[in-house]
């Protein structure tokens, strides 16, 4: 596993940060972002895919009342692909019985989808060698988050109560004083420690967090990040070609 990985540094892979507005569609935005990224990496084509089709055509009715990433991937398989955002744009509300998939060309499609092991090392390896992954986390600490690396404990962020889907796009490491609060007060420089982190794309607009992104500590299953790591696969299962994530 390379020391750092950030798919945002490769053109055509990560699309712009979306904003759910008052529609509970993090699951659809994360799934669409995952397929966009894999399509960009594999076919070097930048696509922006229709979240609205996932909301209108899913098997669970009103997609704005929440959902699951695996249902989004099932919808893409059932419809033999997904329309572009341009053809089938996001409306901020679902029309469950008005699926227009058949009216629009498929802009991208998937072979299947998989859930990865609940192991941060293996998730990092897949992220670096295959591409971004959707994850589901406990969003409790995100409401007031502004920047930096969130490092929580199971008490401050229960890893079993996962309720928000986001897209894992990279990882890295930063430095910080051993105790940043003491460090701030002390005159002499405090010993420093390195903090490994995940980079995640949220769907609450670019004015939230670090331009729509946030970072979670990597290595202690902060906020349940390892519980549901799912990704589509756009490649036919042939001999693996290696891709490498830009540093």
């Amino acid at each position, binding site marked *: 596993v390379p020391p750092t990985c950030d798919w945002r540094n490769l053109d055509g892979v990560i699309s712009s940060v979306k904003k759910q507005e008052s529609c509970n569609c993090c699951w659809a935005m994360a799934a669409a972002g995952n397929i966009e990224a894999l399509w960009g990496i594999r076919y070097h084509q930048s696509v922006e895919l229709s979240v609205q089709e996932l909301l209108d055509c899913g098997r669970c009715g009103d997609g704005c009342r*929440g959902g*699951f990433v695996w249902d989004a991937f099932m919808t893409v398989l059932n419809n033999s692909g997904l329309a572009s955002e341009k053809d089938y744009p996001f409306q901020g509300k679902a029309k469950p019985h008005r699926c227009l998939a058949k009216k629009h060309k498929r802009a991208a499609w998937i072979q299947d989808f998989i859930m990865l092991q609940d192991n941060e090392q293996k998730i990092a390896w897949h992220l670096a060698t295959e591409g971004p992954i959707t994850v589901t986390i406990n969003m409790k600490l995100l409401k007031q988050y502004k920047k930096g690396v969130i490092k929580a404990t199971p008490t401050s962020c229960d890893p079993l109560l996962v309720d928000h889907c986001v897209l894992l796009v990279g990882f890295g490491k930063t430095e910080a004083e051993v105790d940043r609060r003491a460090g701030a007060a002390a005159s002499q420089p405090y010993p420093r420690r390195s*903090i490994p982190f995940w980079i995640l794309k949220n769907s609450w607009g670019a004015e939230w967090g670090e331009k729509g992104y946030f970072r979670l500590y990597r290595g202690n299953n902060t906020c349940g990040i390892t519980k549901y790591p799912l990704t589509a696969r756009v490649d036919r299962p042939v001999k693996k070609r290696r891709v490498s994530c830009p540093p």
Partner: protein
Amino acid sequence: GSLRSQDPGPQPLELKQVFTLFQIQYNRSYSNPEEYARRLDIFARNLAQAQQLEEEDLGTAEFGVTPFSDLTEEEFGRLYGRRRMDGEAPNVGREVGSEEWEES
């Protein structure tokens, strides 16, 4: 900005001034004085909670005023939580063989 980087200046901004800055930054307006007072109270609670989160965080995270600072936990959860799970893990983990599973 976040609480940490907020410049203490000659004296910290009054809560109402911070709230006014929040309203300007995120284009918020309230329909009547009661609603304004209620949102100001929620805003103050959220700021206090942000302070506590920053103290508890073991990483480098900074917490403070965000686009959701005038929302209660319930409002925020309703707007952004994925809800279908309603806080419990979906039963995807059900072992094969249970009768419901065979039905489905």
